[in-house]
């Protein structure tokens, strides 16, 4: 059973398109995140949701909009894609308190052409 799963794994699209990445966790965690890994492999947080409530929005262009229909799902919608959006996007989840070990999905490699 995959603990944190995100789809699709690869996404190739043209500039200007709108796309979504889906994420689901079956760990019963309260908190979910989106991280972006750039071409130099640096990982940086984009958003964090706790029990469907946005708690971190890390200066991300408003073309990126996360949506959490329930605490097990956190989707990422991107409008008007730009070349610079090409990266690997990771979803993660953790408990809010106590042992807050984070677990990551397999990543979505987004290529904008």
């Amino acid at each position, binding site marked *: 059973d995959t603990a944190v799963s995100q789809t699709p794994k690869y996404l190739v699209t043209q500039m200007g398109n709108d796309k979504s990445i889906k994420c689901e966790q079956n760990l019963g965690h309260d908190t979910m995140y989106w991280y972006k890994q750039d071409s130099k*492999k*640096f*990982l940086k947080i984009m958003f964090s949701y706790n029990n469907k409530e946005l708690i*971190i929005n890390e200066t991300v262009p408003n073309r990126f909009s996360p949506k959490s229909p329930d605490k097990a799902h956190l989707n990422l919608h991107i409008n008007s894609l730009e070349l610079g959006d090409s990266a690997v996007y990771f979803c993660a989840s953790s408990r809010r308190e106590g*042992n807050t*070990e*984070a677990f*990551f999905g397999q990543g979505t490699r987004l290529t904008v052409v």
Partner: protein
Amino acid sequence: GIQVEQSPPDLILQEGANSTLRCNFSDSVNNLQWFHQNPWGQLINLFYIPSGTKQNGRLSATTVATERYSLLYISSSQTTDSGVYFCAVTRYRGSTLGRLYFGRGTQLTVWP
């Protein structure tokens, strides 16, 4: 935010060699994790180690939180150990609750 520095940035080893990777962080933290990003891009949890020492097979890790560093030891390295090793820390303070601050990683290449 917290600065996380990893060293060395690159490491090339022959199979069977041992190595030590270091992670320094700039402020007090509540939790620390080590990850291995394999050549397929997956981020694999190695250790959740806010303090103390843990061992898992050929890998072990030590965190000295009061001195703001952590070490990851890899013994008898194998080609499958190749990839990027990331250290990441968490600090519980208001809105930053739970977020991970990552280092830039150590790229490990193990040759047969």
